[in-house]
């Protein structure tokens, strides 16, 4: 069974601080995605990484896929209150089913 463990589960920081969220597994994934979910809404895709060692940047967010394609990290620089939300990593399972395995999420609160 493929599982993804996210850490930390909860994070409360002040505006302007940096943070990193980790997503780890013992399984290899064909791709790794990060989503952000706000209360009362569905998750929204932030980024997809598909190549081992790949790094992608989205403004103040930096995403990295591990060399062995088993783990990923999300780094936010100079966090802002607008970054508050639930961050979910999701791994693409093998085969052509389109199935995603989700981590349990990291709830981020950025205080002004």
């Amino acid at each position: 069974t493929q599982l993804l463990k996210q850490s930390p589960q909860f994070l409360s920081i002040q505006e302007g601080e940096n943070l990193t969220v980790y997503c780890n597994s013992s399984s290899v994934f064909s791709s790794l995605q990060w989503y952000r979910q706000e209360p009362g809404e569905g998750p929204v895709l932030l980024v997809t990484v598909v190549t081992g060692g790949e790094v992608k940047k989205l403004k103040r967010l930096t995403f990295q896929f591990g060399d062995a394609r088993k783990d990923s990290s999300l780094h936010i620089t100079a966090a802002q209150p607008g970054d508050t939300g639930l961050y979910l990593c999701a791994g693409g399972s093998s085969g052509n089913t389109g199935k995603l395995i989700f981590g349990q999420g990291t709830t981020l609160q950025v205080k002004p």
Partner: protein
Amino acid sequence: DTAVSQTPKYLVTQMGNDKSIKCEQNLGHDTMYWYKQDSKKFLKIMFSYNNKELIINETVPNRFSPKSPDKAHLNLHINSLELGDSAVYFCASSPWGQSAGGYTFGSGTRLTVV
């Protein structure tokens, strides 16, 4: 124009009742999914359909029956509702077999069984 729309947004019902949730996507995607998000925010796949054909059925009680009349619609019918069915149910869609392209999610249906 909402890409993936679910109805209803909220559903409160008594144990033992039967209820349905509807989902429609206008993205032209081939694959649609039902995911359940529990009280700890964990998202778990229930079903997926590709162009009206059932592809994934993940050990879900047979009280849950999905139906896809066409590739733009995926409905979920639940019989004999139980307290443990309370959760947020999300519909999502993607191009066929391309999880790498990401899902587009609906805004969810919060089901409360009392």
